């Protein structure tokens, strides 16, 4: 009789441990997924900031570089395409194109010493550099969190919980054009 009781208690204890572990693992997964979503929201915030900055930049450059209508129009177009893109994959591609157009614009600025000496432009340039960095770091933080989350849902034993409650893998945010990070340069000589 008492042996049965011991077995029963041991069984109950094991079940309790498993249940507690499962609750902990589930909560952990929810927390990780929340971090991933926050990361995505943060990218949006930074991209929006970049879109807001571009008209300013184009206006400033226009006053000096009157012969470069084509490049400026490309930037404006790329911005429009990026604003309207949806989903990580499409947005990644549009962002790549915008980055490339901006890179070309900044390269072009090299030919206009007056523009480079313009205080307004210099301030804008620090803002643009920083905004580019912020977009990059937001993307990096998002991808880091996706990596942590995807690793967790794919490894035993948390994968059991993930499969049971339908935690799917998240998508990485990739920028498709590799050469797009042509960063602006300033030099006084």
């Amino acid at each position: 009789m008492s042996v049965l009781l011991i077995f029963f208690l041991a069984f109950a204890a094991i079940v309790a441990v498993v249940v507690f572990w499962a609750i902990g693992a589930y909560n952990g997964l929810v927390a990780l997924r929340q971090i991933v979503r926050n990361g995505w929201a943060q990218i949006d915030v930074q991209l929006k900031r970049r879109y807001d900055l571009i008209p300013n930049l184009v206006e400033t450059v226009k006053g000096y570089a009157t012969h470069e209508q084509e490049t400026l129009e490309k930037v404006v177009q790329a911005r429009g395409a990026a604003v309207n893109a949806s989903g990580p994959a499409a947005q990644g591609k549009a962002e790549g194109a915008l980055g490339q157009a901006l890179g070309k614009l900044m390269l072009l600025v090299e030919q206009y010493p007056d523009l480079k000496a313009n205080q307004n432009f210099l301030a804008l340039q620090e803002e643009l550099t920083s905004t580019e960095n912020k977009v990059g770091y937001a993307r990096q933080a998002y991808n880091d969190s996706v990596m942590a989350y995807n690793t967790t849902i794919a490894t035993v034993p948390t994968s059991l919980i993930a499969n049971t409650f339908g935690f799917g893998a998240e998508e990485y945010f990739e920028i498709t054009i590799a050469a797009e990070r042509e960063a602006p340069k300033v030099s006084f000589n």
Partner: protein
Amino acid sequence: MWEAIRANRRRSTWLMLAMGVVLLSLGASIGILAVSWRGEPTIDDQLIGAFFGVLVGIATWIGSWIYSAVDGDRAILRSVGAREIEKKDHPRLWNVVEEMSIAAGMNGMPRVYVIDDSAPNAFAVGRSPDKSSVAFTSTLLRTLTRDELQGVAAHEIGHIVNEDIRFMTQAAVLVGGVELLSRFFIRVGPFAGGGRRSSSGGRSKDGGGGGVAILMAVAFVVAILSPIVIRMLYYACSRTREYLADASAAQFTRYPEGLASALEKVVVHQRTSAVGELNGAVAPLYIVNPLEATKLSAYSSTHPPTDSRVRILRAMGGGASFVDYEAAVKKIEGDRLRLPALELAARTGERLATREADPNQDPFEAVKRARAAIDLIDSFAGFTPILCLCGLRVKTPPESTASHVGCPRCGRVLDVPKPETEQQEERQSLPSTSGTEDGQQHYTRATGDWEAFSCNCGQTIQLGAGYPLDYTICAKCDRRIEITPAS
């Protein structure tokens, strides 16, 4: 990453408990000793003494805890004379801190403070990631490039997201509590009590004398050792946290070289310049211990040796993740250094590649650095530097007795300062700019060759032989100066 934070949290809990035990046992010991030094104690008396001692310990703990929770971080910032800045005050610093907060996945960013100090350093304080502050000295901002500043900011943000700042504040409170109590003990204990206790041997009425004496001896040892033990605990955990924050910085910036070169600059500055006025009491908080140059014992040091940190960061072999940092620690320190939290995080992590250096970096940064190093070596060797009008720095060897020397670039004859006047840079009066009505500065070149003049703000501006533009911008005050070429 997340594993490291969790492991850190567990470790912090254990350390807090250990430190709390030290505080409470010190309280108990003082209670026992206070009872024992007044007449003939029994074991019961001693236990009651210990009980009240523990109560005093708890009260001290709660009291200092409340103080730190209410005013801790602001008190620290006030004590070093930090002032809060906004974005417009220093856009680059603000942007760098914001970038790193984003990379760390924080909600919002910490408040940013600047300290006017001649030593380059930085620290982070606060109770939680949402209510945290980072402070940088003005000299740090002047000395570092954008990449380096980013490395430093990432290290501080690393302290914030690893929850080091909260722990360090709490730990500092406990250390303070223990020190308060042990000072109290010195007042009431055997050193102050004098000859209160006339009868010898601690023999008591019920014959439990052995127990009473042993308890007293133990209490005495605990009371003597606890301030030392608690400091060692505090310093030991602050040291491993520096490595963790470095690993986080490498991951956030994806550029370990930035932090490595910033650390190097800070240390070189500390060894060659006057020590600033940074407060020694907050030493464990700084990115590099401001007292490092003067401290000898590895056990009393709040930070790991900076050399080791720089070497590890540089040994990461093109990687930027915790995995790479862990491998670098193994390579540089072998088994001498164990970082359990890091090992745990490295087990599940993946390798991450580093990024390119900041393309906006001053192209002459490497040259400037090499020059600073050579100047340093020369000044140790007793060379006298003389700054010529043309911008060249002429150095005379210590054994030279000549009173004049010719500049090898422009041929001017320069006076060699007397050896008594300490290696002061000879500054001859420079031509200045002429102003026009609208505040515009104007400078007419005397020759087509190397020449220097001073801006209205006092900044020396040098022009090379082939300077192409008809204006220049002062590096200090940002004002535009028109230039007329020599006729």
